[in-house]
C-alpha cells in the first residue's frame, strides 16, 4: 500500500524530465483507453442512443414504451425468474458447502478439493453444460433410467422435463453453487475465531452466535454474492440455447433471435431490449459494489 504517492513526489533521476515521464505514462495507458472506448463504451452508447431513437433518428420514448408488450415483458419475467431462483438456491447451497469446507471441522484435505472443483465447475458453463444435463436428466439419461430401474418411478411421467425452466435452473446451479463457494470462502475465513469464543464464554448458544454475530457480519457478502449470481445467470444464453433451443422465452434468446433476423421487425426496439438488459445487470452490479464496500469494513 506504499504506492499512494502522487506524480510529483520523489523521482531521483527525473529532474531533467519530470513532465515527459508522465507523458510517457499517458502514452502507455492510451491503448487501453482507446480499446475501452471502441469495444466497451461506444457499443453500449450506441445501444443506449438507439433505444431513444425512431427509425429516422429522431428522439422518442416509444421503444421503451414498446418494451411493455406482453411477449417482451414475459421474456424479461422468465429471465428474472430463472436468474433469481438459481441465484438464491445457488447462494443457499453454496453457503452450506463453503461453511462445511471452511469451518465444518472436516478433514483438512477436503477444503482444497472443494475449492479446486469449484474453480473448475464455475467455469464449466455454456453449451457443454447443456449436453451434460441432457445426458443426466434427459428422457434416456442415466438418472432418469436409474429411477425407473430401481424405484419404478418415471420422473418424466411425473411431469419433469429437462427442457424446461426447472431443468435450466438445475443446470445453472452447476456453476452458480461453485461460484458462491469461491466468493464466500474468503468471507468465512474473515470470521474471527475469537468472536465465536467470546460469544461462547458469554453463554451464547450456536444459534445466538449466528444470529447476533456471524450473520450480521456476513450478510453484505451473502447478499452481494447472490446479486452477482443473479447477474451471472441473467446475461447467460449458451446453456439455455443448447438445452432448449428457442423453446424457453428468455430475454437473451429473444435478443439472439432479434440480432440474427430482426424478428421484432423493429431495429430500435431491439436496441431497447438490449438496453433494458444492461439496465437490470447494471442496477444489480451497483448494488453489489455498494454491499461489497460495506462488508469489506469487517472482513479486513
Amino acid at each position, binding site marked *: 500500500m506504499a504506492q499512494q504517492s502522487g506524480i510529483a513526489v520523489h523521482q531521483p533521476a527525473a529532474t531533467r524530465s519530470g513532465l515527459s*515521464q508522465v507523458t510517457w505514462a499517458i502514452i*502507455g495507458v492510451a491503448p487501453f483507453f482507446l480499446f475501452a472506448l471502441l469495444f466497451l463504451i461506444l457499443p453500449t452508447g450506441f445501444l443506449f442512443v438507439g433505444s431513444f431513437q425512431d427509425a429516422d433518428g429522431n428522439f422518442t420514448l416509444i421503444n421503451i414504451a414498446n418494451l411493455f408488450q406482453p411477449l417482451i415483458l414475459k421474456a424479461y419475467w422468465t429471465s428474472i425468474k430463472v436468474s433469481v431462483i438459481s441465484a438464491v438456491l445457488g447462494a443457499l447451497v453454496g453457503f452450506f*458447502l463453503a461453511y*462445511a469446507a471452511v469451518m465444518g471441522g472436516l478433514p483438512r484435505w477436503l477444503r482444497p478439493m472443494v475449492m479446486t472443483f469449484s474453480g473448475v465447475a464455475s467455469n464449466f458453463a455454456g453449451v457443454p453444460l447443456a449436453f451434460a444435463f*441432457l445426458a*443426466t436428466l434427459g428422457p434416456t*439419461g442415466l438418472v432418469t433410467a436409474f429411477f425407473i430401474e430401481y424405484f419404478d418411478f418415471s420422473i418424466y411421467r411425473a411431469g419433469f422435463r429437462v427442457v424446461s425452466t426447472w431443468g435450466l435452473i438445475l443446470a445453472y446451479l452447476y456453476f452458480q453453487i461453485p461460484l458462491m463457494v469461491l466468493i464466500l470462502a474468503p468471507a468465512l475465513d474473515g470470521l474471527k475465531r475469537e468472536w465465536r469464543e467470546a460469544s461462547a464464554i458469554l453463554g451464547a448458544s450456536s444459534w445466538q452466535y449466528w444470529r447476533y454475530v456471524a450473520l450480521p457480519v456476513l450478510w453484505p457478502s451473502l447478499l452481494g454474492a447472490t446479486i452477482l449470481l443473479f447477474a451471472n445467470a441473467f446475461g447467460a444464453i*449458451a446453456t439455455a440455447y443448447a438445452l432448449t433451443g428457442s423453446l424457453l422465452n428468455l430475454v437473451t434468446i429473444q435478443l439472439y433471435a432479434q440480432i440474427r433476423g430482426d424478428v421484432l421487425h423493429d431495429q430500435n426496439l431491439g436496441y431497447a431490449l438490449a438496453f433494458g438488459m444492461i439496465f437490470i445487470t447494471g442496477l444489480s452490479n451497483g448494488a453489489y459494489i455498494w454491499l461489497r464496500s460495506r462488508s469489506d469494513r469487517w472482513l479486513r
Partner: protein
Amino acid sequence: MKQSKVGPWIAIIIGTLYFVVPLIATFEFSLRMRRGEYSFDSYAIVLADPRFQESFLYSTFQSLATIIVGVLLVVPTAYWIQLRLPRLRGIVEFLTLLPLVIPAICLVFGYLRLYNSSSWLPMTGNDTATSVLLMFSYVALSLPYMYRAVDTGMRAIDVRTLTEAAESLGAKWPTILFFVIFPNVRVAILSGAFLTFAIVIGEFTMASLLDRPAFGPYLQLIGANRAYEPPALAIMAFMITWACMGFIQLFGRGARGAAIGTV
C-alpha cells in the same frame, strides 16, 4: 467447544452427488453409441470429424491471439497506473469490470451495428476483419479476469524499486517493461492466460453472432443434430476446463492472489 460434524458431512455428500452424478451420467451416455456394449466410438467419430479439428484449431488460435493482445493491453496499463498514474486507478478498474456488467450478447450487438460493412470502421466486411473483431470481443470478455490477475501480481512486487534500479542501470522503459516487469508478473499473466483460454475455447454467443467457425457454434450444431457425440464433447470440454484450472494452481503455488474464477 465441540461442534457436530453431521451437518457439514451431509452438505459435502449432497454437494458431491450433485456435482459428480452429471459427470458420470455424461460419460456413461457418451459410451453408449454401440448397441448393447460400451465403446469409445463417439470419441473416435468426434476426433476424426474435420469440422471438429478446424473449429477447435480456430478457437485455439483465437484464444492465443486474445491472450497476447490482452496481456499487451493490460500489463503496461497496470504498470503505469501503479507507478505514475494512481489517480486513474478507479476509472481503469471500473472499465475493466464493465464486461461483467454488460452481457456479452449486448456487447456483440453493439459491435455488429457499430462496425458493420457500411460504417466508419467496417470490421464485418470480410472474414479476416471479422475474426479480428471476434478477437477484440474476447479481449473485452476476458478483461476483468486478466486485469485482476495482473493487477494482483503487480501489487505483490515492488514496481517502483524495480523501475528505479533498472533506470539507474540505464534501461529505457521498453526494456524495463518487457525484461523487468513482465518476468516478475509472469505467474499472474499465466493464470490470467489459462482463465482466458477456458473462457474463449467454447464461447458460443459472440462467435455465433459474428458467424465465425469457432468451437462453440460447432458444439451447438452437433448438439442439435447428434445423440452420442454431444456428451463426448462435454467430457472433453470438462477436461479442458479442468486442465486450465490445474495449470493455474500449479503455477500459482507460492504466489497467492488471483483466486480462480472469483469475480
